[in-house]
């Protein structure tokens, strides 16, 4: 029997952060809703039920509802998590929901992750810096499958913002690349199709807004819904930057 086939029904109490910046009468406050727990109930199901039966003005974001699109990051009892993937059976009967910090609030649980991630991509130029233009007539460049798998490992980030919200540095320094940003840089750094030199990478990553801004608390590693190995990613970046600095010093 799986955890969701249990039939014992709880009365769940949701305490949800409310604020609509578009409404001059709205002030930030917590609002309480109650629901009967149902089998397989995720926060996606619960929040939609609250909106459709209790308060149609409640704002939140979901799209794929299968932990792939990264829309529904929120603070669940003080911890960043994907709402769609969080099952009520794994939570106490009182569930407190807040919007993710760091990102600009759109309303209630909805935050603007899109703008944050776009500026992160722009700042670190997180796109392929190919040496040559694409040749439609040529066969693909070869790549060892083990390397492809290693790149894919970092590629799996869904930019939900949970790591950024959990990061003490990102909460204080708006220019910090954040764990997701550093992960994306590492993903391109290890990709031989990207032609950037060590010196160029050094510029991007070795500052207080880059890898040296990280204080090593690694909450990001614990909260990542995709279980990205952020600890290893940070170690990889430190190693690469150090090696590049040493090589530079030798010249």
């Amino acid at each position: 029997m799986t955890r969701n086939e249990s039939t014992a029904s709880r009365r769940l109490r949701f305490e949800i952060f409310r604020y609509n910046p578009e409404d001059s009468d709205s002030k930030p406050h917590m609002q309480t809703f109650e629901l009967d727990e149902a089998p397989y109930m995720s926060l996606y199901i619960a929040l939609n039920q609250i909106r459709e039966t209790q308060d149609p003005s409640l704002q939140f974001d979901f799209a794929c509802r299968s932990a792939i699109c990264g829309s529904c990051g929120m603070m669940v009892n003080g911890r960043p998590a994907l709402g769609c993937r969080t099952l009520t059976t794994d939570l106490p009967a009182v569930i407190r929901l807040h919007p993710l910090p760091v990102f600009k609030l759109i309303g209630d649980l909805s935050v603007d992750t899109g703008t944050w991630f776009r500026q992160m991509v722009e700042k670190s130029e997180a796109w392929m810096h190919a040496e040559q233009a694409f040749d439609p007539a040529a066969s693909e460049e070869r790549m060892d499958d083990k390397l492809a798998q290693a790149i894919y490992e970092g590629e799996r980030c869904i930019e939900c913002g949970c790591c950024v919200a959990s990061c003490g540095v990102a909460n204080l320094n708006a220019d910090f690349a954040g764990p997701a940003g550093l992960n994306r840089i590492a993903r391109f750094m290890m990709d031989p199709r990207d032609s950037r030199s060590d010196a160029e990478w050094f510029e991007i990553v070795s500052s207080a807004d880059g890898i040296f801004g990280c204080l090593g608390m690694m909450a990001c590693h614990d909260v990542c819904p995709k279980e990205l190995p952020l600890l290893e990613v940070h170690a990889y970046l430190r190693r690469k930057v150090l090696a590049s600095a040493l090589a530079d010093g030798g010249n």
Partner: protein
Amino acid sequence: MTASAVQFTDVLVIGGGLAGERCAIEAAAAGHDVLILSLVPPRRSHSCAAQGGMQAALGNCVMAEGDNTTLHYLDTVRGSDWGADQEVARIFVEEAPVAVRELAHFGVPWTRVRGGHNSYFIRGKRVEIDERLENDGLIMHRDFGGTAKWRACYAAAGTGHAALYAVDSEVVRLGITVRDRAEAVELIHDGGRCWGAVARCLRTGGHFAVVAKATVIATGGYGRIYGKYTTNATINEGMGAAIALNTGSVPLGNMEAVQFHPTALAPSNILITEGARGDGAYLLDKNLHRFMVDAEPEKQELASRDVVSRHMKQCMRDGNGVDTPYGPHLWLDLRHLGEQHLITKLREVFEICRDFEGLNPVTDLIPVQPTQHYSMGGVRVNKDGQAYGMNGLFAAGEASCWDMHGFNRLGGNSLAETVVAGRLVGRAVADYAAATSLDVHTSLALGTKHAAEQRAGDWLNRSGSGPDVYSIRDAMGETMMSKVGIFRTGDELTEAVDELTALLIDCDRAVLRSKVPGMNPELSFALRLKNMLRLAFVTAKGAQLRTESRGAHYRSDYPLRNDAEWLNRTLVRWAADAAEPEFGYEPVGEIDLPPGHRGYGSDERIEMYEPVEQYNSDAYERQAEHGRLASSEAPGSRILWGAWREHV
């Protein structure tokens, strides 16, 4: 907002998924100003949820040896049950390898061939294969339904995600403006020429007009007209198709052609990729019997999706499903693939089973049921992606009916379509924008914007005791799944049409319970509801009118494919202010591969009575009569006549 809320651009792309963004890249690279409107940050578009792969005949691994574009073409046309435009299918298969390799250039970490010893599951047996050392490091393939060769290129089970991130990175690199949380609500047009769209900001609730030389609809599918009975994201509500339909000039094609995916996780309907069966997973009934081996001895679990879904539904109708309070389901068995395979090549499947149901596919059976998955229908366009009946309007990807899928698309063909069509339609859009100027009165744009604001205002002003919008949505979903589903009958379709007619009336007297300023989620949904009901209506009505079975459209009361009467494409036009939609039928295109047996499913059919040559003689003329606009090259010019003969 004030009258100054009008923006100008060369190219407006509605939809920030793979098709829209690839199209935008092409137009921007040609030097045009491009603006993308997206409901969500582009990387959250539903393209990211495509798991299993992208079909392209590279022929790199042993099980793909001898593959070529013509075999891919044959699979695609057969898969479509001859509903596809064969020229478009040919264009697609020829361009797919280039598009896949271009994605490698953009950074997609495709899974690669491992030269030397490999172990696979093929049709229920473990098979040891030595991959050629000279192919080591080339893009690998996996098996998918309805294909002669292993052809799907993949990045673990996150192919769409990897492709979307790579393409969006290019969009950022090129500095293309993306306005996210913005929803196009009406096209700006004069009945024959489109000049952009009016959109609603989903941050503030305000409306703005975007005036453009060329407009592209790339909003994906409309699975949410099936309510919760869909694998689609909540954002797949078909608004691109709806605003095209509302013009009254642009027809939607084959709306009744709706794909049901065999393996949605029960009961949440989250997708489990076909790549799972491609890699060797079994479908089992309640007695743990592999019923697909009896039903389709040749293809087994890997017949096309329409065929597998019907066998599954029949199996459950025969009492061999596993009963639950949520209804019956069947089992997907991945256990024999082993943990190593499941946590690498099918990692996303492993995670979905664990996270949403607490199941471990290494040891547990996975409950699955067939569920709405893909919309073969959409904005009818010519081979350049130019919409019928409306200059300056284009469509690409799932939102379009281009029409390479006909009545059933093959797994992995849609993800490939997004980038192939994106490249090709993007070029046509760039050419169009270069050849035209913004010769339009802003009063047309402002009038459209005013009308959109008026509609929102009407909802907010309406009071009384009418039904609420979510109950109407739920009723629509129940009607669509139970009466316009996998097996259809004339009686049930008539009921569905009547029920949807009643829901359209309900929608006009529904009231909002929330009138808060801002985006107001209830208002945002209410503004879509009528559009969704109209799409549902033309889907049900189209299914009622089509008295044959073809691909995913299966009529229990007309079980045979009828090439004598129905070798055609449904076109429907329905202006926003017209009482009834108008249905018409056009030839599928010129026929190169004559109708025959698909190689799976039923071999019985009603044959064409006219010779193919006669069908072809005026096919394009008849399409032009239905509004097809001129393409850059003559229609039919890309068909490689008879190339298939070497392969059958």
